[in-house]
Each structure stands twice: as C-alpha cells, then as structure tokens.
C-alpha cells in the first residue's frame, strides 16, 4: 500500500458545532499536501483529528494502515504560532530538544546523539547562532524555523505544519519551503495548513480544499477553479489578468 493516510467519513464537532463534516480522502506518501480554506473552515481541526488529538464523532482514520496511537513517534507537529506562549522561560535549543523526547526513556537526559541531532536541526534551519536565546527574542520567521527544527529533530515520517507562513517574512517563508521540499526528496510526507491561496500552486503537490466539508482534492489546476473557490471564499475572490486572486483574510 502506498497510501500513507486514509480518512473515511470523519466528522468532528465542538458542542454541537460541526467543524468537520463527513470527510473522506486518502493520500499517497512522499508529497507536500496543502490543506486550504478560510478561517474557521476546520483545517486545524482536521489535522488534530488525523493526529489523534481530539475525539472524532464518526469515521475511521488510518496512518500507514495503522490507527494513530500505534504510530505516534512517526508523526511530528509544528503548531500554529499563535498557540505558543513566547514569554515562556525556555531557550531555542531546549525547544528543539523536545523533538528528541519521544526517543528518550522517560527519566533519561539527552545523550550525545540527541545533542548532535539538535545541533544539526538548528543548523539546517539556520538558527544555530540563536540557540541560547529565549524564544521570545527571535523574529516571527526565526520562531517558525525553531519549531520546524524541532520537527526535524523528531525524525518523523509525516509532518503536520499549521499555518507555518502566517505573519512571517518572505525570506523565512522561502527558506522553510526549501526545507520542506528537501524533506520531500528524503521521502517524507508533509501536510501544510494554509489559508492564503495566492501561492498555493507552486507550493503543493496536492491540495485539500476545505470548508467544513471536503470541497475538492487533487492537483492545483483541478482544485483551484472559480467554481470551487466561489463555494469556499464567496465574495473574497476576483480575477485579475486571468489569475485568480483571493483577498487575504
């Protein structure tokens, strides 16, 4: 089986509010998948459901043919930056070391291999010089790179990134995208939650277009047509020089 993730008839609700409704799809491994839709369309909820972080009302989710709880170590998560307390008394290096926790015995401290992997991860994303800084002292882009480094240190097969490009500079965005492409070459599968359509085409092999229901799944050209976008973004789209434009929300 090449399908790395299978989602069948999955629904999730919060106190009667349906955030995800009867969603089904399956994904081949070794791709970069964009999960796209406006704010509140259930993107984060879908990711949390796949990762087994919230209870689903209905449906079946399998990762590499197994239920999530058998395979947690192989999955890394890069949180939405707004969910992190950047005043927390913790250094860049310590955050990245958390990526090694699933590989450590519960009472043990980091060994030399862990330290080397942390160092390499920091170097790969280019924030090694700031390893001793408290995380709040970094720019938004650098903070995002730190959390990517943490996912790298985890050596996972599948990565979920929730809005990694929100509120960061374009140079950091490009750097992060380069790293994601490199990870794909190494055989990883990457899910990227994204609410800005304008660049989606170049970034993702497959797009999952979401508005609480699954609107469409497929390659860029198939998904991003005016019909689908109208369903999802309603009045926020316009066509300029034959290019679809979506107002940023």
């Amino acid at each position: 089986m090449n399908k790395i993730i299978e989602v069948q008839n999955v629904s999730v609700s919060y106190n009667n509010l349906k955030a995800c409704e009867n969603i089904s799809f399956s994904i081949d491994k070794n791709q970069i998948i964009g999960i796209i839709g406006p704010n509140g369309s259930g993107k984060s909820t879908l990711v949390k459901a796949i990762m087994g972080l919230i209870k689903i009302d209905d449906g079946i989710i399998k990762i590499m043919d197994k239920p999530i709880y058998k395979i947690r170590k192989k999955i890394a998560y890069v949180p939405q930056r707004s969910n992190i307390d950047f005043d927390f008394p913790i250094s860049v290096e310590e955050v990245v070391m958390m990526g090694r926790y699933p590989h450590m015995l519960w009472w043990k401290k980091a060994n030399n291999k862990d330290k080397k992997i942390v160092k390499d991860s920091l170097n790969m994303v280019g924030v090694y010089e700031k390893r001793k800084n408290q995380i709040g002292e970094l720019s938004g882009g650098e903070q995002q790179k730190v959390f990517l480094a943490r996912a790298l240190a985890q050596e996972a097969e599948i990565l979920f990134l929730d809005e990694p490009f929100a509120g960061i500079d374009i140079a950091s965005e490009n750097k992060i995208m380069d790293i994601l492409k490199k990870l794909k070459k190494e055989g990883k599968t990457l899910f990227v939650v994204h609410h800005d359509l304008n660049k989606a085409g170049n970034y993702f092999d497959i797009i999952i277009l979401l508005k609480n229901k699954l609107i469409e799944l497929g390659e860029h050209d198939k998904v991003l047509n005016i019909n689908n976008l109208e369903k999802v973004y309603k009045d926020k789209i316009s066509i300029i020089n034959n290019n679809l434009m979506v107002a940023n929300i």
Partner: protein
Amino acid sequence: MENISFFIQSLGKYQYLQNAIIAAILVGIICGVIGCFIILRGMALMGDAISHAVLPGVAIAHFLGFSLIIGATITGVITAIGIGFISQNSKIKHDSAIGIMFTAAFALGIVLITANRGTGVDLWHILFGNVLAVSTSDVISVFYISLIILLGIFMFYKQLLISTFDPIMAKSIGLPTKLIHYVLMLTLSLVTVISLKTVGIVLVVAMLITPGATAYLLTNKLPKMILLSSVFGISSAIIGVYLSFIYDVATGASIVLVASTIFILSFIFSPKQGMLKNKFNIIKNKNLIESSEFNG
C-alpha cells in the same frame, strides 16, 4: 539587632518555634517549585480553587478521625474533576466552572464545620493557620510529602516541561496530558494540606503564585526560575515567622506579606522587565524619536 538575637534565643528554647520555622521553610520550597508550573500553565485561579476545595475533606477527616491528607486530596481532586467535566461538557467557560465548583466545596466545608461546633475543629485555624500547633510529627509528614513531590518533579521534569509549554505536542507524542493535569491537582491538594497550619487554606495560593511570579520577572530560564522561586519562598518563610513572632501577628499573613514585598521590589527594580527599566526605555526611545525628528 536586639530583636534578632531575641528571636534566635527563643528559637533555641521553644520547640514550637523550631517546628513552625522548619515547616514554613519546607512549605516555602515546595510552593515555590510547584508554583512555577502553576504560573506557566496559567492555572493561578485553579490553584486558588483547589486549595479552598480541600476544606470539606479536611473537616470530614477531622470528624471521622482519618488522615487529613486523604480527606483533602479526595475533595481537591473531585473538585478538579468537576471543573473539568463542566467546562468540557457545556458552554460554560473554564473560569466560571472554577468559580462554581470551588465556592460550592468551600461552602460545604464551612457548613460541615459550623454544624459540628463542639468537636474542637477551629474554622479560623484551618482557614488562616495556627503555627503554635505545628507538632514534630507534623514537621515529619511535611518533610516526607515535600520530598516525594520534589522527587516526582525531578523525575518527570521533561514531561512536565513539554505538557506545560506545548500541550498539543505533548499529546501528539502520546503523553497522558489529562493524567498529568490531575496529578498536578492532586499535588496542589497535598501542598495545601502541608501548608494548613503555617499559612492556612485562604492564603496558600499566595505562596504558590507570588514567589514564582517574582522569579518569572527576573529570569527567562526555567531551572533558574524554580531555584529563585524557592529561595523567595524560603526567605518569606523565615522573615515572616520572625516578624510574626516579634510583632505578635498572624504568621501566615506575615509570611505572605513578605513574599508580596519581595515581588513589588522586583517588579520595580527587575533589570530585565522591571518598571524602572521600562520607564528608562520609554525615555530613551522618546529621546531617539525626538533626535531623529530633529535630524530628519
């Protein structure tokens, strides 16, 4: 000076004073350490709630003659579970759920105690401490409970750290974040019990929050924050017991006021985030803006 030597002399003479100060120091350490995690998890209100919620357990344990520790942890944990249940299964917000549950438990405790006047349970002493009554066996049990809590924190430091900093990742790598939460609530109940005689139920939250918050202003490294917090806890304990002895005022309140004073000092003078520093920065920035306006 005279006062200090009088205090030291009395400390040598009176067993109760020795017990009081040792118990206060242990409480200062343990509250200081746990308090750091409570603050960073944004659970100050929860700390207040659980400490109040041990009251009915303590009362029942008194009447039926079993261990206060068991009584307190039972009602403390039941309250925590009740709060979680209400906020997860209705649209009531977490802080409202806390408000509903802990006042209910506290009121139940007061009713139980006032309904059983004449059994020798003094409500005032439970609420505000009674440092004269700290026995040697109290000190011993405070010591062992503190030791167990500290050991637990030391052994599960990684798990505590990650579930505090990034609960979503903690859950995603399979840590039992709910269990960690409830163990922490249980620990809060224990901490309240061991603080019962020195600071009492009502003020124990100050010992949890104030030294930790003081330390939070002074450093951005967690191990250092924990260390500083317990140092502030210890200093508040010693100075507080001393002041209450010399001026003959309530010990718990005296300890808490010392902790508050240390907080205010660091709030004003903290080199990193203190008020003076901020003022200074504002003035500096203003000058910069003015001079750049002038140049431009």
